[in-house]
């Protein structure tokens, strides 16, 4: 089943919401698996923040596309091709280094995005953004801290961080792609064109990687397509796990 949203503002908002939801679920998959209880709680705390952000945005999208659908409809009743999150957020957790690098790359992007969205002409989006800025600043802090520790840590942790960066770096190009939707939305003042977030992202990531003694990898390829509903193989499995309870027992509550 696919649920398609109509209108540039709704599509744009859906991209942001899907980024939050998918990353949230990936982090939630760490629950009870993190290296220590403290890290377990830190990761699931971030997952809950992201889930809250996604919910705020889904509620708004239902109004924007005029369907009045519920948050569950967006989260649990859309097929893979109807999700418009970037491919970076769906990347498998891998080891702790991979999760932390992914978090650094995502949170830095999301923080710049939420900061710009606080000035959105859409008041509801601006309200979600105002709350999200504080949360996301903490996510970026935590990921930065771990990047410095692991990058500038032991030989083993440094090796793992380099490996994670090499695997994830190609997926960052997609974050900053502009298209007709983003240009229309930017012109309306609803939100920033992703391309405009690049200088801030570049400056922060370059500084952190430098401090962590991690060289930025060469870009070997540029996967893309997430915003058009094209996803990596791993995403289908993640979605099946995330949706199967809701689909098996429609409307179930507890």
């Amino acid at each position: 089943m696919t649920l398609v949203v109509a209108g540039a503002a709704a599509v744009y908002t859906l991209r942001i919401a899907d980024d939050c939801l998918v990353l949230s679920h990936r982090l939630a998959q760490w629950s009870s698996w993190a290296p220590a209880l403290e890290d377990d709680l830190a990761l699931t705390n971030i997952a809950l923040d992201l889930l809250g952000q996604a919910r705020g945005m889904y509620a708004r999208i239902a109004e924007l596309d005029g369907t009045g659908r519920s948050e569950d409809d967006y989260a649990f009743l859309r097929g893979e091709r109807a999700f418009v999150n970037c491919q970076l957020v769906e990347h498998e957790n891998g080891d702790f280094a991979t999760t932390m690098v992914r978090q650094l790359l995502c949170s830095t992007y999301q923080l710049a995005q939420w900061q710009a969205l606080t000035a959105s002409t859409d008041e509801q989006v601006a309200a979600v953004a105002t709350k999200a800025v504080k949360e996301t600043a903490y996510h970026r802090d935590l990921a930065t801290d771990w990047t410095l520790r692991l990058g500038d840590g032991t030989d083993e942790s440094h090796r793992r961080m380099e490996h994670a960066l090499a695997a994830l770096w190609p997926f960052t190009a997609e974050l900053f792609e502009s298209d007709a939707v983003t240009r229309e939305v930017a012109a309306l003042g609803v939100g920033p064109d992703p391309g405009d977030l690049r200088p801030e992202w570049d400056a922060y990531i370059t500084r952190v990687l430098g401090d962590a003694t991690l060289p930025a990898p060469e870009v070997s390829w540029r996967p893309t397509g997430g915003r058009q509903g094209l996803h990596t193989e791993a995403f289908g499995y993640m979605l099946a796990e995330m949706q199967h309870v809701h689909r098996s027992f429609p409307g179930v509550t507890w």
Partner: protein
Amino acid sequence: MSEETPAPLWEVFIRSKRGLSHNHVGSLHAPDAEMALRNARDVYTRRMEGVSIWVVPSAVITASSPDEKDSFFDPAADKPYRHPTFYSIPKEVQQL
């Protein structure tokens, strides 16, 4: 991770609101003070429990010994005059 030496233990103190003192809430493991503070935030203040956190290495705490319980604490047992029970407390005083 479990086979390795666990990170040092830290005691966590949280002040729930202005005007109150920090209370001991528990302990956690962390490699250093900065991470201990971050972990304390995630483990102990998720439900808005506090406005301020202290973390202290458990190793630096000097504790009274259970063996000395009698000489330490019993002498206070029969001295009720040390309790300020003879004063009336104004209603406005919430915390004492």
